[in-house]
């Protein structure tokens, strides 16, 4: 699984350009599911057909996209100006290495500033080693999107790398497909697009599938680092069951269903109240007439930086819980 996580997180896949990631995922799960298709928005939808009589639809969603930098202007000297795709803190970009879809590498720096307080994206640029506008134009077009260029490392039970948000969720769903075995209900594993810019793939795929239950698998923040903002979620304390974020308040029923499953199966979990941020679960919840939805969150430090950190142990617990929820034939009887 480490290899899978490494491959997925290092891949190129900003919002709108998730193809490479989707192809990797397809290869991984094609032997374990009954149907695989890409929908109009670009979401990869895998179906594991249920064997039960009174089948319900459960939709799992993890987003395949990552944040990126869109090229908006090429300077005479070959430097690239850019804007953000998804939520990016400019301070996380200083000195960051980046890559374009073509494989072209580069780095980010900024104009001279009297104070770092003045740091804004418009004061920043990418340096791709080119020394003129003409040279740059051969390598890059306006509208191209760069992502962090970062190798993923495993240190002492921790995973550190870029785009763990939310390729780690993709890895969880892939493992779920592999481990769940025969199921009673129809299990849709959806690898969504454009989550980072507003839950868009989750919204349209939930409309198409119209499931009876939606579960997103995504990362969440933690409060376990020095001087962190208060939050009762920590690395290594298990899968975080979402109670609330800006996009979702989990209903009592869904909360109970997930917590009961974790308790019954002895899976280590914690409860998550997130001040800001949303996941595909919020979009699924509001599709059509309303769809019961929840979210299994992976506690993650330094979200949206080029070194996001999660605990391998939490990943394993999340997989266990996802497998048990997907495989539970009594889910809707309770």
């Amino acid at each position, binding site marked *: 699984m480490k290899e899978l996580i490494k491959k997925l997180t290092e891949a190129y896949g900003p919002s709108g350009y998730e193809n490479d990631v989707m192809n990797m995922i397809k290869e991984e799960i094609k032997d374990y599911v009954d149907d695989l298709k890409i929908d109009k928005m670009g979401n990869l939808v895998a179906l594991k057909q249920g064997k039960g009589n009174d089948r319900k639809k459960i939709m799992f969603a993890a987003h395949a996209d990552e944040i990126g930098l869109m090229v908006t202007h090429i300077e005479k000297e070959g430097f690239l100006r850019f804007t953000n795709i998804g939520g990016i803190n400019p301070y996380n970009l200083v000195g960051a290495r980046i890559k374009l879809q073509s494989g072209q590498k580069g780095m980010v720096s900024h104009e001279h500033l009297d104070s770092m307080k003045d740091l804004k994206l418009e004061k920043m640029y990418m340096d791709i080693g080119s020394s003129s506008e003409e040279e740059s134009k051969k390598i890059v077009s306006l509208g191209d999107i760069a992502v962090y260029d970062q190798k993923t490392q495993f240190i002492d039970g921790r995973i550190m790398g870029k785009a763990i948000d939310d390729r780690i969720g993709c890895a969880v769903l892939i493992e779920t497909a592999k481990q769940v075995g025969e199921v009673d209900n129809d299990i849709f594993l959806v690898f969504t697009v454009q989550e980072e810019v507003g839950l868009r793939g989750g919204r349209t795929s939930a409309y198409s599938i119209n499931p009876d239950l939606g579960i997103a698998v995504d990362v969440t923040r933690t409060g376990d680092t020095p001087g962190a903002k208060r939050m009762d979620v920590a690395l290594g304390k298990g899968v975080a069951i979402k109670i609330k974020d800006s996009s979702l308040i989990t209903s009592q029923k869904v909360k109970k269903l997930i917590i009961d499953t974790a308790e019954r199966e002895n899976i280590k979990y914690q409860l998550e109240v997130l001040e800001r941020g949303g996941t595909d679960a919020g979009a699924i919840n*509001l599709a059509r007439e309303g*769809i019961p939805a929840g979210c299994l969150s992976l506690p993650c430090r330094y979200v949206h930086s080029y070194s996001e950190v999660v605990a391998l142990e939490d990943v394993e617990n999340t997989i266990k819980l996802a497998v048990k929820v997907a495989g539970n034939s009594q889910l809707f009887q309770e």
Partner: protein
Amino acid sequence: MELKDFITRISEATGVSGNEEEVGEIIQEAFRTLADDVYVDKLGNVIARKEGKKKSEAPPLMFAAHMDEIGFLVSKAEDGGFIRFEPLGGIDPRTLPGQEVVIKGREKIRGIIGAKPPHVQDAKEREQAIKMEKLFIDCGRSQEELNEIIQVGDFISFYQELTWLKENICAGKALDDRAGVAALSILLKELGNRSHDFDVIAVATVQEEVGLRGAITGSYHINPAVGIAIDVGFARRKGLEKERTLQSGAGPGISWGPHVHPQIFNKLKEIGERDEIPYQLEPVPFPSGTDTYAIQMSRCGVATGLISIPLAYMHTPVETINIKDIKRTGRLLASFCAEADEKFLEGLPCL
């Protein structure tokens, strides 16, 4: 149930966004005596249907008021038995110190919102407003006791008994928008002795305070031709601009702006004039923030209206209303239902 009793019960019940079951039960019970069919939809909206005379397949008339209230969630139980919390909905932290709350853990327990005492603050600190993250809830219990009852994610509601300031004027929590729900009950009651062509559906929506969520899914589900929301508007008080406020006790505000269908607006005004039901105009240049906005944009679009009941001290536990405005709202809408015939509905698409 008498209106005053109903308002008292729903105001005092808990029903923070995402946790509306308790107030929802009371509303269901009341609506059952007034409507043909009452049920709860997937997100928790309470839906009451009163059948129209026409018994056609025509889309219904929808009336929505939200039953959720602002409140909090337990975000952390800290050493020493203190509880930290996260707001649900727009809350001014300056209104919080010294408020009473109820926490819905394994059992309901009461507590007080506390802050660092002014005596131990330095001069500079005392000039600052206290931030939400500096506040805590004290239940007078030890950490061990609390751990048995409370966990992260439990809902917290203001604790407040409704007070009658004058015969028709009451103050309490959650009147935004339980006042609207009370108006729905008047509407259904009035329709008991008035005939109307089309099905009327009254909805007590959930999760309005966190993003109109109940109205989004509820209107998709109901798929109405006409949708009118009943919410509260700012009552005129000291220091507030006249043109952005409504006068308490002078009748409901009939809202006007891009979120309102001109013919629904005209009809409501016309009825107000003719039946001598006092009303006020409420111009809103930029749509945001009430169920109307969500309903209007549902599916292929809905012809919408918005009624605002004047309410003072919004989003505090002493929200103040005049119940005459609630009764007037119910009557106004009942006449609207009685007069919304096929011809009126056919004229609504704009060409």
